[in-house]
């Protein structure tokens, strides 16, 4: 379980998060929606320990993330898989090496198993024939999928997706969403998905939270969000639905 309590963060006087409260239960898939520049990525970077808040705390399974030693934090991170907004693939490695990198560095599987798993992971995200290419040689949407394959390969228990489908065509978008749903059925991870895909994301998420003005202004099941009366939420969800 991840609990975010009164999280505040500002950059040079610009208040980005102003008291975010949120609870994410185990095995739950939560979608975070909100306007561009609203602080969704900043919130996610706090959850994975890349940023320190000015105020507030983040509890992972009851332990305060900010009070953890580096070793303890690494233990928590071992269970995390992350798809960064910019994919964050390693430029100096081929696509295949990128995908199997976590396997090579964190497990002692035999080489043949690594090759097997890597090939399967790339197939799962619908990528073929790009194994030997470098990240600079493939499109943004393909990078996104490689990043997804890399994040899933260690079968993490908590996965953070920062806009995994933005900029992809509708067919790929649906196949990625289906992939998330299927892997979730199979492994039952906790998922935190930042997304602009409304209403498509409603079919993936168990819960939706809307970040606005540095706070979570609404959260609930997709149906609850759809019938929410708050004008901001209504406008945001409605505008994308029509």
């Amino acid at each position, binding site marked *: 379980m991840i609990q975010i309590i009164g999280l505040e963060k500002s950059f040079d006087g610009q208040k980005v998060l102003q008291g975010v409260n949120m609870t994410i239960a185990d095995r739950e898939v939560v979608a975070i929606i909100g306007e561009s520049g609203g602080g969704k990525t900043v919130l996610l970077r706090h959850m994975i320990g890349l940023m320190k808040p000015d105020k507030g705390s983040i509890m992972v399974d009851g332990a305060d993330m900010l009070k953890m030693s580096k070793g303890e934090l690494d233990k928590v991170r071992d269970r*995390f898989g992350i798809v960064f907004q910019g994919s964050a693939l390693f430029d100096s490695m081929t696509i295949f090496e990128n995908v199997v990198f976590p396997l090579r560095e964190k497990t002692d599987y035999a080489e043949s198993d690594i090759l097997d798993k890597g090939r399967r992971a790339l197939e799962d995200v619908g990528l073929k024939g790009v194994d030997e290419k470098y990240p600079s040689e493939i499109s943004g949407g393909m990078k996104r999928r490689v990043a997804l394959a890399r994040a899933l390969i260690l079968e993490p228990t908590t996965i953070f997706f920062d806009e995994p489908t933005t900029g992809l065509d509708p067919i790929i978008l649906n196949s990625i969403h289906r992939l998330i749903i299927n892997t979730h059925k199979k492994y039952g991870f906790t998922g935190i998905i930042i997304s602009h895909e409304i209403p498509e994301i409603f079919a993936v998420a168990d819960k939706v939270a809307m970040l606005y003005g540095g706070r979570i202004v609404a959260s609930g099941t997709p149906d609850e969000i759809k019938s929410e009366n708050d004008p901001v939420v209504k406008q945001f969800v409605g505008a994308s639905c029509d």
Partner: protein
Amino acid sequence: MEKFIRILGSRALGTLRTMGKMVIFLAESLYLIVVPPFKFRYLFRQIRFFGTKSLMVILLTGAFTGMVLAIQLFYTLRKFGSDALLGPAVALALIRELGPVLSALMITGRAGSSLTAEIGIMRISEQIDALTTMALNPLRYLSVPNILAAVIAFPLLAAVYDVIGIYGGYLVGVKLLGMSSGTYFSQMEHFVEMSDIRMGIYKSVSFGVIVSWVSCFKGFYTNESGYGAEGVSKSTTEAVVMASVLILIWDYFIGSVLV
């Protein structure tokens, strides 16, 4: 006035903080060098990186340095009637001083700068964050292989610089100024001692540490020079300037201590 002092103070504190961070960065990297797991794959790649990036410019500048040295020293030595010592004079100047220093400066411009840019781009495109969140220590993949590779590559490149420079001096001294080639080389064997060569190696090794350390550090903390591409270009410039200055300062210290 008070404002001036305050600015001065915050600048000084900022500088001090950066220095502290640099020392910690180096200390952690050196610690990781001796503690497994080792990443040999990255080490070999980085040795090749330093070598291939810098070899051409080392050959070119080495040859011309030797030639200039020969011309300058020839006229000076002839004034004292000891132009027979041209060979050892060129060799000693190169081996003890100019080879290590100039080759290090060349490598800084060639490989050090692109190292900073590469790591800086890894920082701004969240590749370093990706390593961190995989619970891997980024230094093990970035600074450790580079420091080791530099410690190996710098003396080798300095040696190439020396040899090419001595040959350049030979061209000028023997082919142009008419010395006998026997004198040029035999006197060299006589005067150049193992301690001189050792001095050159010590210098190269320490320059290797300085350049890789500064380059990696500046790339790693690119975000602090500014954001995006501008931050990368700024930290690249800073890395080259800082590494060059440190090379010359350290050269003086090591030269005056080791003699």
